[in-house]
């Protein structure tokens, strides 16, 4: 009753009925791997909700205040307002720590889900025409997520984030020619200085999230317009889409997933401590934490900075510092390669028209091997990002470990690529063999079923009688 009234109200003002009906019938594929992007989307929802709550309490200021909160070891000390408010949220606002930890965990899962989503797109070749634009938007979303994650945990002005800021400063200022200008634009001068935190805060809570939200709308709009791809299978062709409809089954599943993601993040926020700033202590210009590490999604850049040898480039009076190569050039090249990939692949491919059926990873051994090589490269770098901790816990010297990793960073990707290539080729051969077998079985099966039908219901299959099918006119009584 109410539904009817609401729909009449809306339709007479917006003429929405036609659109809504087609929307309700929109078809979404059922494969689990299509959920990865959704997980990222729902994490963004959590980030916006928890982030808004946190922003109500956080003061992005490095002005010194005297701490009066409930954390005994720091009472009476002069700390920055930013760090003080982070302590206040964590220890004195009821449920504040829960919200803060949920925010941090959601950010980690956000990045994780985006990377897994991109990997799925890459390995199943979903970026092909007509979806190249969405590939570019997706990568840009990843970049924004990484950057905003860094801003987020660098604003709290604790000892760890201070160390991160110093490294961020060194990376930004290492850019040839414009580095110092960029640094003064984004950080307001050499670190630490009172301009840095407010600028990062504005970027973190407004500019970058607004960009992410805008690109997300574009991303989803394009998916809606182009519809999803399908994994290869019966009835799945470039001209069809197979799955369940938006209403009700997909809505129920997707809403269920949303709540499950929320639940997992709440559980992590409640039980798994993350970024305990009160333990790290306030930022102290003269101190560094041993074993300081960025959040995991920037660990590969950190690892590259550690593995890259102490070599810089002097061009007369000008300097390209050693940090530039592993921390600016390498990531830029990685992302450039990712951005260009669909277009490069197109040069070597004979596909024409829209590609709506996915390819299994083993169907494209070279591409899959390439992807695995990149992932292996990243994993070695990520390991290198924690080499001091690994060295301490295994009782080996960092130098030995670093030499090993310097070799591995080249050898491991190549090895992994070769192995992947052969596994793919083998899988492809087996698939071809089993397909051929299935085909034969199917033909036999079909023939058998035809014979069975012929036996049971012969009239269904009999060839048309000689003289053609007799025409039936409506007024003539049909003969039995």
């Amino acid at each position, binding site marked *: 009753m109410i539904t009817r009234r609401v729909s009449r109200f809306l339709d007479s003002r917006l003429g929405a009925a036609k659109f809504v009906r087609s929307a309700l*019938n929109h*078809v979404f594929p059922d494969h689990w791997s299509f959920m990865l992007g959704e997980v990222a989307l729902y994490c963004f929802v959590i980030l916006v909700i928890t982030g808004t709550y946190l922003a109500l309490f956080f003061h992005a200021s490095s002005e010194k205040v005297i701490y009066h909160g409930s954390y005994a070891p720091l009472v009476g000390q002069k700390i920055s307002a930013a760090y003080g408010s982070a302590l206040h949220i964590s220890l004195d606002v009821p*449920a504040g720590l*829960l919200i803060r930890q*949920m925010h941090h965990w959601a950010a980690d899962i956000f990045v994780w889900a985006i990377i897994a989503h991109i990997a799925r797109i890459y390995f199943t070749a979903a970026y092909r025409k*007509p979806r190249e634009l969405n590939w570019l938007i997706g990568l840009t979303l990843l970049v924004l997520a990484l950057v905003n994650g860094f801003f987020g945990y660098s604003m709290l002005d604790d000892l760890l984030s201070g160390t991160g800021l*110093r*490294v961020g400063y060194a990376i930004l200022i290492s850019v040839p020619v414009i580095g*110092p*200008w960029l*640094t*003064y634009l984004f950080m*307001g*001068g*050499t670190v*630490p200085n009172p301009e840095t935190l407010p600028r990062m805060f504005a970027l973190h809570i407004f500019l970058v999230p607004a960009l992410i939200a805008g690109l997300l709308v574009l991303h989803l709009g394009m998916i809606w317009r*182009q*519809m999803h791809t399908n994994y290869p299978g019966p*009835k799945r062709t*470039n001209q*069809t889409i*197979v*799955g*369940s*409809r938006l209403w*009700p*089954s997909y809505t*129920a*599943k997707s*809403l*269920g997933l949303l*709540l*499950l993601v*929320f*639940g997992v993040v709440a*559980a992590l926020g*409640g039980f798994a401590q993350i970024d305990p700033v009160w333990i790290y202590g306030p930022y102290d*210009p*003269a101190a*560094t934490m041993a*074993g*300081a590490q960025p959040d995991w999604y920037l660990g590969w850049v950190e690892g590259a900075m*550690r593995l890259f*040898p*102490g070599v*810089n480039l002097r061009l007369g*009076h000008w*300097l*390209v*510092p*050693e940090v530039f190569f592993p921390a600016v050039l390498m990531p830029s090249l990685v992302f450039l390669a990712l951005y260009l990939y669909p277009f490069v692949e197109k040069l070597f491919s004979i596909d024409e028209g829209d590609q709506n059926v996915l390819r299994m990873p083993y169907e494209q051994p070279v591409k899959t091997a390439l992807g695995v090589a990149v992932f292996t490269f990243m994993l070695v770098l990520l390991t290198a990002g924690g080499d*001091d901790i690994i060295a301490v816990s295994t009782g080996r010297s960092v*130098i030995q470990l*670093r030499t090993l990793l310097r070799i591995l960073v080249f050898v491991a990707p190549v090895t992994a690529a070769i*192995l992947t290539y052969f*596994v793919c080729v083998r899988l492809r051969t087996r698939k071809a063999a089993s397909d051929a077998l299935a085909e034969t079985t*199917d033909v036999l*099966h*079909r023939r058998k*079923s035809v014979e069975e039908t012929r036996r049971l219901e012969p009239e269904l299959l009999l060839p048309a009688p000689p003289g053609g099918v007799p025409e039936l006119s409506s007024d003539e009584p049909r003969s039995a």
Partner: protein
Amino acid sequence: MNNGEEQRGSGLGAFLELGWSLLRFFSRLLRFLGAVVARVLPAKVVTTEIPESGRDADLPMESEAQIESRERTGSVLVVGSFTVAILGGVGFVFFYWTGAISTAMLGGSLAVFLGGMGFTLVLWARWMMVHKEAVEPREQLKSSPIERESTTEAFCGGARDVRRRRLLKWMGLGGAGVLASMLVTLLRSLGISPDNSLYSHVWKGGQRLVTLDGKPVSLSSLRPGSTVTVFPEDKVGSERAQTVLIRVKEELLQLPQERSTWAPSGYLAYSRVCTHAGCPVGEYEAEQSLLLCPCHQSTFDVLRAAAPTGGPAARALPQLPLYADADGTLRAGGGFSEPPGPGFWGILS
């Protein structure tokens, strides 16, 4: 015997075989786990299309009785899950208001509520809904040539109707240019041009070296092999000005000729900000006379003007020339040999 040799095969082949069987094992394990999950969450897929071949017709069709028993089980599961979720939500409010606030209890109850609601929906979808696999034709994205042509024509035709197009174009470009330069001007307010502090050598000649608590350092302050962090008198606690003062045995020094007078009585002073990524070079290993940065493990040889000996740093730590005045107090003989901190384009100029 010969057979045995052959079967063992080459190392790489055996390795590939092993990898292959591991892969197969894991895929079977996954398939088994999937089957277990499928038992708990049975998906009822019914095709809407007329089966093409005999095989499709093998899809299970449910009888009335089966449907009824499935829905009965389903409603028990759904109601149970929902009840647990609601208890979680009530628990959250209870924990919050009774002041028995621990993050674990709040987070746990919130997770039970949210996760429970999510699980309820998933159970509902799996047990109480009939899933029809929908097959739909895709709409062709590409418009027809006529459509395309007439759109282009509509745009160009509209543009043709504009009189004095060239004037408009120039005005548009001019306006955009002025707007851009206005925006850049606004950026200038953020202080984007690097100021002198970036190029400053921090210390001034004659300044005393003082510790964090403001005490000056004299020739008798340190024993060989020990270190202290010092600052210029006017910048105590400053990040860029922090300097590590080390005393070494004088006969070990290997400073370059022009710096031979910079280390009175074996006192050496270097910038404490790493030239690699700007962390404080906080650790000193007296045995090897090495300064170590805890961030990326760069090492600097203090005897040889803090030249980098390992790790990712490429430039030496800037050195501070020292001299002792009449009563033995250590003073700076000038600024650092280079601007301190991580390298940048113009640091050498």
